[in-house]
């Protein structure tokens, strides 16, 4: 990173919090309209019943589960960047850590809506909570779906606390520059942080422990999500490869989303001196790594099916690549495994246009990966007379649009109202490099 003074870092980040223009509010209003479309579709589904979606027997899980797994996956690279790379002392993470953490929080919030949506009778959600009740029924903790409730709730709480704790010193920076109501708000948010070394002593230790705890959590959460499928005895699902395969895929999709968000953000906020090409290039290199793991997992699934000589398993995998969902399958393979290999070429991974285009391709590919996994196995189960088909309905598309709009709506609000780049971590980076004034 080039030489930046502490004042320049503060000025750059504080400039992102200047009152936004009309364009910003127009985009926010459009995104809010998208959220309303999703809410209206959900409302309609509550009114007429879960049959408003395209789920059927045997394809009981449609886009609601696809989107749930997709958004949980997006969340994961935020924790990779903020926690795992923090423990590994990867300096390039600092400029994007805050935005990635924010992405995690909003992606988990968005993901968390889908089990509610899929419940149909959403007011029965308390059935999942282990509370004494008149039914004398308790949740069954032998089910991976209940593991999921515990894991996702834990992940959301931990992500929010990690995010807020990381922002404390930055809130103090904003408080000290602000006036009026804004100063009062940031005074409350900063909890009176003064950067006393007595505070830093506990803060540094506590933050390190946060990172150390978030690291196994992130691996466990997507493993638990994968067991929603792997513990079922459906062909194509019942395999031990699922946990690492899902974790790698989650990080792959999340890193792509980081690029999708960071590239416009650095341009809009003139943060090119902080979110440098080196940072984006490092993300691209990591995407190559995760893409290779994902590609290896795709190949291994086929190998296991062939090597097992299990006719049902072989039929399911043949169906994936040549059957009704072959288009989705090949989009998945090309976008997730082949397109990221372009990042081996330095000219491509240092081109903003290519980085952005490939990040979008990986996002699309990872959505279709979830589609292929969730739909194709149950659509071609053991018994041919029980085979089925699936296509999302307009209501499902509306809810999906709403979920994407909700995520970007929250992110847009965040970047203009809270520090989207960690000033403290950038200062630490400059200090370690000995480059600040």
């Amino acid at each position: 990173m080039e030489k930046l003074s502490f004042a320049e870092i503060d000025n750059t980040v504080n400039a992102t919090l200047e009152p936004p223009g009309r364009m910003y509010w127009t985009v926010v209003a459009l995104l809010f309209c998208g959220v309303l479309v999703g809410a209206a579709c959900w409302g309609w589904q509550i009114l007429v019943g879960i049959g408003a979606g395209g789920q059927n027997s045997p394809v009981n899980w449609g886009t609601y589960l696809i989107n749930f797994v997709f958004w949980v996956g997006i969340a994961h690279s935020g924790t990779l960047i903020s926690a795992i790379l923090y423990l590994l002392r990867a300096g390039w993470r600092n400029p994007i850590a805050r935005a990635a953490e924010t992405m995690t929080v909003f992606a988990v919030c968005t993901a968390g809506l889908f089990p509610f949506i899929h419940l149909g009778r959403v007011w029965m959600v308390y059935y999942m909570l282990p509370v004494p009740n008149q039914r004398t029924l308790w949740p069954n903790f032998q089910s991976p779906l209940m593991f999921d409730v515990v894991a996702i709730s834990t992940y959301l709480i931990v992500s929010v606390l990690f995010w807020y704790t990381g922002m404390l010193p930055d809130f103090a920076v904003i408080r000290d520059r602000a006036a009026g109501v804004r100063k009062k708000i940031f005074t409350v948010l900063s909890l009176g942080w003064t950067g006393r070394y007595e505070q830093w002593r506990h803060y540094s230790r506590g933050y390190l422990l946060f990172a150390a705890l978030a690291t196994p959590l992130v691996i466990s959460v997507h493993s638990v999500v994968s067991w929603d499928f792997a513990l079922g005895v459906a062909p194509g699902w019942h395999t031990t490869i699922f946990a690492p395969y899902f974790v790698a895929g989650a990080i792959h999709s999340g890193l792509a989303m980081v690029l999708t968000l960071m590239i416009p953000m650095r341009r809009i906020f003139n943060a090119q001196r902080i979110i440098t090409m080196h940072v984006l290039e490092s993300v691209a290199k990591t995407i190559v790594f995760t893409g290779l793991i994902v590609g290896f997992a795709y190949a291994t699934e086929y190998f296991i099916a062939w090597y097992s000589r299990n006719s049902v398993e072989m039929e399911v995998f043949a169906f994936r690549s040549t059957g009704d969902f072959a288009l989705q399958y090949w989009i998945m393979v090309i976008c997730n495994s082949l397109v990221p290999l372009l990042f081996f070429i330095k000219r491509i991974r240092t081109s903003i246009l290519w980085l952005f285009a490939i990040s979008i391709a990986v996002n699309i590919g990872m959505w279709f990966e979830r589609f292929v996994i969730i739909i194709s196995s149950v659509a071609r189960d053991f018994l041919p007379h029980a085979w089925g088909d699936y296509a999302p309905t307009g209501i499902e598309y509306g809810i999906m649009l709403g979920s994407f709009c909700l995520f970007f709506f929250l992110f847009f609000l965040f970047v203009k109202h809270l520090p989207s780049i960690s000033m403290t971590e950038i200062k630490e980076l400059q200090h370690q490099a000995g480059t600040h004034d």
Partner: protein
Amino acid sequence: MTNHDTHITALFADDAQAAAAVGALRQTQWPVADVHGPIPSQAISGALGIKKSGVGWFTLAGGVFGFFLGYFLAVFTSARWGLIVSGKPVLSYIPFFIVGFEFTILFSVLANVLGLILLMRLPAHRDLPRYRPECSADRFGVVVSCRQGEAPEVRRFLTELGGEMPEPADTQRDL
């Protein structure tokens, strides 16, 4: 030192200078009341003789409590609902470790936050009077306690160490 009724704050451009000032002040009769800075600094922590934080004990206690709570919850709910599902025993001890693990992380983090709040004494708005806003930006502030009559001498001493003496809010009678 109850007869020290004034605080003088000197601002330093980098942590090495601030750490050197802390070291020099420890050789005098004027105690260092506080040091504020925009980033953690090993040099300053070393000069102040700050020990390792005890927040990890909170985290450990939370983790142990969380594990047993999660495991107990899974056992208790299964025992209350004694139905065999998919041929699995009612008390499936190995899968219950997953619930125990998630609760371990959850309660470790909650205890970590509780430990931070208690040990950092947050919210700490009453500390703000001795605090200079430059210390959240790009300066390291060393706060020295002294008697009112010694203030000019302390200022001269700190200036010689490379400190900037901000005016006029540097001297406050808040003890």
